[in-house]
């Protein structure tokens, strides 16, 4: 009856929060699932006019259909043949998982924070809707090829109307993210003091809408990667994605640095997300440059660490909420005012994208495979 009853949080917001947290966890679990590598029944198709590396992949993909029966296919390099079909499909799936996880993080984070902001501006619903659509589409993208047992590698770059339409949710996310960046910047600047540390700490965070745009870009990139396109935005796709993931990791780490500094680094673990991801980002940025592969094993290990950082971070943030006045019983305040539960998984998402990028680059350059 009164606004002070225990069931005071609006049921809609409560449901939304629970659903998004559930989705975030689900996406996380999904992302941790080893990629299914069932036998890939490849429909007969013509070799596509791709770069040689790509054509080889296709040839190997075709070969792989018979690989079990016909083990010594002389054309395929022995070290790469058995799993070649996954070389495009696996990174694509990882990219979709990354986009889904990042979208889940943005969805739950913006749901919580914009609910806290009381949806003062109707535009504050936009990232919820956009991130939810990206989440749904990216989950579908991550699941569909695996379930059908068919990598969608045999379609030319998406020029059909369906192909263009499928990019709409991601492009929308980019647009919403950029618009959100503008709104958040305006929110910072309109406060007394303008561009000051206090306002960067306490006004609308600039990193959050950027994450939505990033989820959109990753989703947009996943489709051509799945289709086997060798380049993205004029760069070899592996290198382009390494750069993108490095940029995302660095940005997310900057956001964590800002907010953990605000939190006075009062727990030693708060240093981890401002130390490990930047190093990883530098390594990945190195992998984005042309030339020598660099220390791929180390980069990969760091990316794995970043993947787990998201899970670990959620645990630490949950503990942080428990340590606030009233603990989890006082969730209606502490989930909003305590450390943000949905924030750390963005590291996992970007690390997944980074691993996809690295695997793609390895495949494109014909580097020896490593466990990724």
């Amino acid at each position: 009856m009164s606004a002070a009853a225990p069931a005071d949080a609006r049921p809609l917001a409560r449901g939304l929060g629970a659903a998004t947290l559930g989705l975030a966890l689900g996406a996380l679990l999904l992302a941790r699932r080893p990629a299914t590598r069932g036998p890939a029944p490849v429909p007969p198709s013509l070799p596509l006019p791709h770069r040689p590396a790509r054509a080889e992949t296709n040839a190997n993909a075709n070969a792989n259909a018979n690989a079990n029966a016909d083990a010594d296919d002389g054309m395929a390099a022995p070290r790469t043949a058995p799993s070649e079909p996954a070389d495009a499909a696996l990174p694509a799936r990882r990219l979709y998982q990354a986009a889904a996880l990042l979208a889940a993080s943005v969805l739950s984070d913006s749901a919580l924070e914009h609910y806290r902001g009381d949806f003062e501006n109707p535009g504050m619903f936009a990232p919820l809707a956009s991130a939810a659509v990206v989440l749904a589409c990216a989950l579908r993208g991550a699941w569909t090829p695996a379930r059908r047992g068919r990598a969608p590698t045999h379609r030319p770059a998406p020029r059909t109307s369906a192909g263009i339409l499928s990019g709409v949710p991601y492009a929308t996310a980019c647009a919403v993210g950029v618009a959100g960046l503008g709104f958040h910047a305006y929110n910072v600047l309109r406060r007394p003091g303008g561009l000051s540390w206090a306002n960067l700490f306490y006004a609308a965070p600039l990193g959050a809408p950027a994450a939505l745009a990033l989820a959109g870009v990753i989703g947009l990139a996943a489709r051509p990667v799945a289709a086997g396109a060798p380049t993205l935005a004029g760069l070899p796709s592996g290198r382009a994605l390494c750069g993108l993931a490095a940029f995302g990791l660095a940005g997310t780490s900057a956001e964590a640095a800002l907010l953990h500094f605000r939190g006075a680094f009062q727990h030693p673990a708060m240093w981890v997300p401002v130390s490990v991801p930047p190093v990883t980002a530098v390594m990945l940025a190195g992998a984005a440059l042309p030339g020598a592969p660099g220390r791929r094993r180390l980069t990969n290990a760091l990316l794995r660490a970043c993947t787990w950082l998201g899970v670990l971070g959620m645990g630490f943030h949950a503990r942080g909420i428990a340590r606030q006045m009233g603990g989890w019983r006082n969730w209606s305040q502490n989930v909003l005012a305590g450390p943000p539960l949905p924030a750390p998984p963005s590291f996992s998402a970007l690390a997944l994208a980074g691993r996809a990028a690295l695997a793609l680059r390895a495949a494109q350059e014909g580097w020896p495979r490593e466990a990724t």
Partner: protein
Amino acid sequence: MTQPPRFPGYDVLAKWDSPSFDDVTRDVLAHRLDAVPPRRWLTPDEWDLLDAINARLLPQPERDRPVPITPWIDAMLHDDRGEGYRHPDMPPLRDAWRQGLAAVDDEARRLHDRPFAGLDADAQDAVLQAIAEGRTASPRWQGLDARRFFIHHLLKTAAGLYYAHPLAWNEIGFGGPANPRGYVRLGFDGRDPWEAKEAP
């Protein structure tokens, strides 16, 4: 006189079992609501006089059971528990109240030939107004600043006790202690779901 409530339907005690209240808050409030102390230090006449003064300072015509103020002042004087300081030109707590109450009554007799408690509301207001403005005639104010007694003792004490009561909290939309649950919407006009809702 009686205005529509500014926070219609708001009852701060509905938070009793919510995360907004903890055991300490509940104990303090239960004591405040149920353990209203009896008269122990004031004389019956002083009690009636103080009750009449409080009824003019904070009229509660709309309440069947007014928020108790006089009993808590009596308890304060009985315990001799002040604020921990006093003005250098004022007597100690108990002396100030005893002398001040007697002076108020004397002032009423000088102005209206009757004890304060026997006056009608307008006459009582006139007496208090004169004291608040320092227009006093009684020699009983000797060594006691009348204006300071009115503002610092009578008015501030009564207001403090009145607004310590949950019924008064409902009136002003106050949520009680921000402990354990505080507030998350800290901007101007921000209202948390567990806060009182002001009538439009």
